[in-house]
């Protein structure tokens, strides 16, 4: 059974891709992982080692072929699609490498999108959206469209968007991969601040310096966790 303070617990997770015919790829062979609330976890490893696959499973975007996954005390590995969508919207905030803002919407509207799918009245959350926009330093760009923003600004909108439903954790797959080092640092500083404020962060990166900011660094290799480095202890579970 998962310990109550473990926000994430996966056990014996496998992911198999069938490429038609006999061909199949074992992207994840056997992964066990537990993450406590408030942890900043970085996942590293060579290309093709299964980092993104793992993050997608953690984000409920994909299902494990075998094994189980508890998210915040719920077994999500066999949830029907609708509940999974709900879990994604409520418990998880995504930050993508390529920002993935919706082109036809303004900054403010992009931040509001996750609220819509929780059936929340956007008007009641106007102040929250404004606060988030200010938090990421875009309080004066609310009416702008994604194509009127720089990459760094877009990524900051994506961060604000990921926070709007106050999720259990943020998942980021190479969030600074498309940014120059200075804007990348700004974004990472923002993520640091969020973690200091108590948010659980799981972040995939190739960059040692990025990983150095995390409490724990998990190194993957050929679909298994090869080794784990603890930079500094994660905060003690408060509850």
């Amino acid at each position: 059974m998962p310990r109550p303070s473990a926000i994430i617990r996966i056990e014996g997770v496998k992911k198999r891709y069938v490429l038609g015919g006999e061909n199949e790829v074992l992207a994840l062979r056997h992964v066990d992982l537990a993450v406590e609330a408030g942890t900043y976890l970085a996942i590293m490893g060579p290309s093709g080692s299964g980092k993104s696959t793992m993050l997608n499973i953690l984000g409920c975007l994909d299902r494990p072929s075998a094994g189980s996954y508890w998210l915040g005390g719920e077994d999500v590995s066999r949830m029907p699609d609708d509940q999974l969508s709900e879990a994604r919207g409520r418990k998880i905030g995504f930050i993508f490498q390529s920002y993935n803002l919706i082109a036809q919407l303004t900054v403010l509207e992009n931040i509001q999108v996750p609220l819509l799918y929780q059936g929340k009245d956007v008007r009641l959350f106007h102040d929250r959206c404004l606060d988030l926009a200010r938090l990421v330093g875009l309080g004066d760009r609310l009416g702008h469209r994604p194509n009127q923003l720089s990459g760094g600004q877009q990524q900051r909108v994506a961060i604000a968007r990921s926070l709007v439903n106050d999720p259990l954790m943020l998942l980021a797959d190479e969030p600074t991969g498309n940014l120059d080092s200075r804007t990348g640092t700004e974004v990472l500083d923002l993520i640091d601040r969020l973690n200091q404020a108590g948010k659980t962060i799981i972040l995939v990166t190739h960059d040692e310096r990025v990983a150095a900011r995390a409490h724990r660094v998990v190194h993957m290799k050929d679909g298994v966790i090869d080794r784990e480095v603890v930079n500094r202890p994660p905060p003690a579970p408060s509850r």
Partner: protein
Amino acid sequence: MISYQLASTIRLGVKSLLLHKLRSALTMLGIIFGVCSVIAMLAIGEGASYEAQEAIKKLGSNNILLRSVKPPEQARQQGGGGGGGGGGPRGMQLKYGLTYQDGSRLQTTIPGVKRVLPMRIIRENVRFDRNEVPCQVIGTLPFYPEVAGAAIVRGRFLAHIDEVHQDNVCIITTGLARRLFPHQDPLEHSVKIDAFYYRVVGVLQERSQPEQRSQSGKMEGQPLDNNVYIPLGASRTRFGEVLIRRAAGSFEAEEVQLHQITVQMENTAAVETADPQIKTLLDKFHDQQDFEIIVPLQLLRQAEQTKRIFNIVLGSIAAISLLVGGIGIMNIMLATVTERTREIGVRRALGAKRRDITRQFLVETVVLSVGGGLIGVVVGVLTPIVVSQLTTMKTIVTVWSVLLAFGISGAVGIVFGLYPAKAAARLDPIDALRHE
């Protein structure tokens, strides 16, 4: 709450459509044309059939009309009683048509006959003062208004005493009264027809002009309600039975006793049975086909039948054009779904359920088709107005045709939008996100 969500989904749909203005406009065009053509065609069809039905109804659905027709085989007969009209070089004289005897035979032999109204219709110019108007001078009996459904607006109609005395009195139609007496009260003035003066004793409001579909093409383009009514006997004695028509230097004389007999039946059932009986009776006494029988009731039924067929044809054309429009929409939406696969993935990652995605794309299609439908309704309502302005064709835009066209456009959106929307929702979030 739900309506608020729907409103924001619609707003989003409009936004997405505006992102590709030209594409959306072109897609809508199919629906616009479809809806517009449904409404416009139905309006023109409705107008045409309304005019036809009105014209037929004016003839009176209890009436059977008999008309003299010049026989096609010019079976010429040298003139018998060439009384009044003769003179000048002898041309060919043709004797044909309905007779006074036909009238009395109809009255006595056919069951269910209420009245038999004989009419002589002669074209003459009618003059008063300096005004001269080409008219139909109709010799008839006092009960003409009841049979033809006309109303006396001033004075009186012909009376029995006029017939007995063959008085030179006349009744003119309202239209003619306006033309002959623009500034005066026509009553008690005398108008000149041919060589004689007739005292105007009444003004008649026509409901019908059964004479308007006369065989001769000469009356075309002339106002239809320039009629003068005089006693039948007066028409016979003043004009005679031989009429001379001057055409291109030659003379043509015709002897016709009656130009039309209107048989008024007791009820519509009697109309059905009397029709063949009248034909049999008249055929017995006419050795040539010199009359025609018009049964307005039958014409009305035919017109209704024609209209039904017309509506079915129009409906099919409209259905096809809307189908084509729908396929256009579906095509574009499938392309849009492919193009926006990434967006679908992002929305799914942000918590959208399958039905949210379905709704989003369905709303977009419906906005497209209903938008097109609205524009189509506006254009479709304006087109008949323009058509009737340009062609004097009557058009009637019925409410049901607008509702039908609009309803179909909405249905097209839902039917043809459902597949692309479902296809969009079926995508796995991770596959959609990875799409590029």
